[in-house]
């Protein structure tokens, strides 16, 4: 028997697998395919104060080993999420969730965080300062140490839940931003959000995405994510939710060896709705194959010795 339990910022997960924000809605679509209570947890769709339709179509493109999206945080707004989506979610998922908090000002982040903080279903707040598809917010906060620290400190003061700050890879030095967030009070970090990217249509000679750029996710970014998780793990002492292109139980193990305590699965859910279920089912066999009995014990294992 192997033990897949991990502890993320004080809350036990039966396994480290967490569907990533924006790839799992509020859980309902996937609950039609399988019992999603097998998940460690999941991170809900990025939520803003006001409803957002997001960017104009087309907002999906493809790469050789992944996809680009420029959705731009479409969501029904925090009040609707709290009154409608969370109750529906409670019927299909019975564990604490990560509430993904987005905003366009520090005040807005704080207001969304306060409303999520009052929800019993919410185990952690995931502070999204890394969305590459919105202007005047999102990634704007995650690209400098000062603004990342400012919003982290403000939200930390407004919540009783563990605060996990989600970082963007679209920076020159993710380590310094990670450290700034830790010093500002973050209880954990999640990385990476999508990588800013572009495709061009040879027929129209124009970018495929109406927003011009989008966020690349999928297997193409996995090695990049592993590298960044490794670097951040070296520099901070708070837990890391590692994500970016994870699509197999082996990827989960590799991400944990790099330093992740829990592991997000994003684009893989969109290609295969059973991706997380399959990964969770394959995890014990993969652990046995690599001589792992207790998953928690391998966190950061590649750094030692």
């Amino acid at each position, binding site marked *: 028997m192997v033990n897949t339990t991990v502890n993320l910022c004080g809350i036990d997960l039966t396994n480290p697998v967490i569907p990533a924000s924006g790839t799992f809605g509020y859980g309902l679509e996937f609950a039609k395919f399988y019992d999603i209570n097998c998940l460690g947890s999941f991170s809900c769709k990025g939520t803003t104060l006001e409803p957002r339709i997001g960017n104009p179509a087309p907002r999906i493109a493809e790469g050789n080993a992944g996809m680009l*999206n420029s959705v731009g945080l479409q969501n029904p707004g925090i009040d609707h999420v709290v009154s409608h989506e969370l109750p529906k979610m409670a019927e299909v998922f019975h564990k604490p969730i990560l509430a993904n908090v987005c905003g366009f000002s520090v005040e807005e982040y704080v207001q969304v965080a306060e409303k999520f903080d009052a929800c019993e279903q919410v185990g952690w707040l995931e502070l999204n300062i890394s969305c590459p598809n919105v202007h005047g917010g999102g990634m704007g906060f995650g690209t400098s140490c000062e603004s990342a620290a400012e919003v982290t400190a403000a939200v930390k003061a407004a919540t009783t839940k563990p605060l996990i700050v989600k970082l963007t890879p679209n920076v020159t030095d993710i380590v310094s931003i990670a450290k700034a967030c830790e010093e500002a009070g973050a209880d954990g970090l999640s990385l990476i959000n999508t990588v800013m990217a572009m495709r061009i249509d040879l027929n129209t000679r124009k970018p495929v995405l109406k927003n011009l750029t989008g966020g690349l996710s999928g297997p193409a970014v996995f090695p990049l994510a592993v590298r960044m998780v490794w670097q951040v793990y070296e520099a901070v002492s708070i837990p890391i939710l590692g994500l970016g292109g994870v699509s197999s139980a082996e990827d989960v193990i590799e991400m944990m060896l790099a330093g992740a305590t829990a592991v997000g699965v994003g684009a893989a859910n*969109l290609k295969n709705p059973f991706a997380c279920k399959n990964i969770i089912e394959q995890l014990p066999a993969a652990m046995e194959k690599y001589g792992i009995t207790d998953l928690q014990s391998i966190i950061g294992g590649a750094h030692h010795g």
Partner: protein
Amino acid sequence: MLQSTFTIIQSKALTASVQELKLKGDCSAITVPGQFVQVEVPGKFLRRPFSVVDWEENLLTLCVRRSGRGTDILCNLDAGTELNLLTGLGNGFTTRHVTPLPLLVGGGSGVGALYALAKNLTNRGKVVSAALCFRTAADVYYVNQFAELDAQVYIYTEDGSIGEKGNALDALELTHSQLFACGPLAMLAALDANEELDAQFSLEARMGCGFGACMGCTIETTEGPKRVCADGPVFPGGVIQW
């Protein structure tokens, strides 16, 4: 919704750009004409969505238009190739209250997408008019298939090279009591602007997941944002903010 393996049993070019694929597999999740499937394409990350053209218990028919590298790969696969499909996606057409003279208007690759509906309606004794609209004679396909259902088939081409010279809007002159349409968005928008009767429009969209999770295919409607994949692909007339 079901994820399962299908096997190509026949792949036939209908025109230079449209390929008819017949696949063997479990069609139990497909319940309504106008639903779609998501096909995993070898070597491509995202699945490709296609309307169900026809289905039986274990036989699925798709018409794939070559519109890029992914569809080219799919159209070039040999019989015997296994494919992973998500089936039973989307709402499909509402056929409970069909009036006596339904008009089906298909444009280009939207023509095949109306076949299952035509079959459903003719089987129920409705007098179906099918207006099949193409750019030119070389693009025409599925005329015989619709005719064999005893539908009244009308062909329109933009250049008049076969059938009537005209487009989908000209088809509205045919006597009808209800409209079902599938084709390019511009065609559907024009029909919606000119039609006052009951209408249902089946939309094409660039999708990520196809089952409502990614928000990639959202459109704006009078009832707020809707996902083409999960809230559609069929929408009633007068609702979409084209």
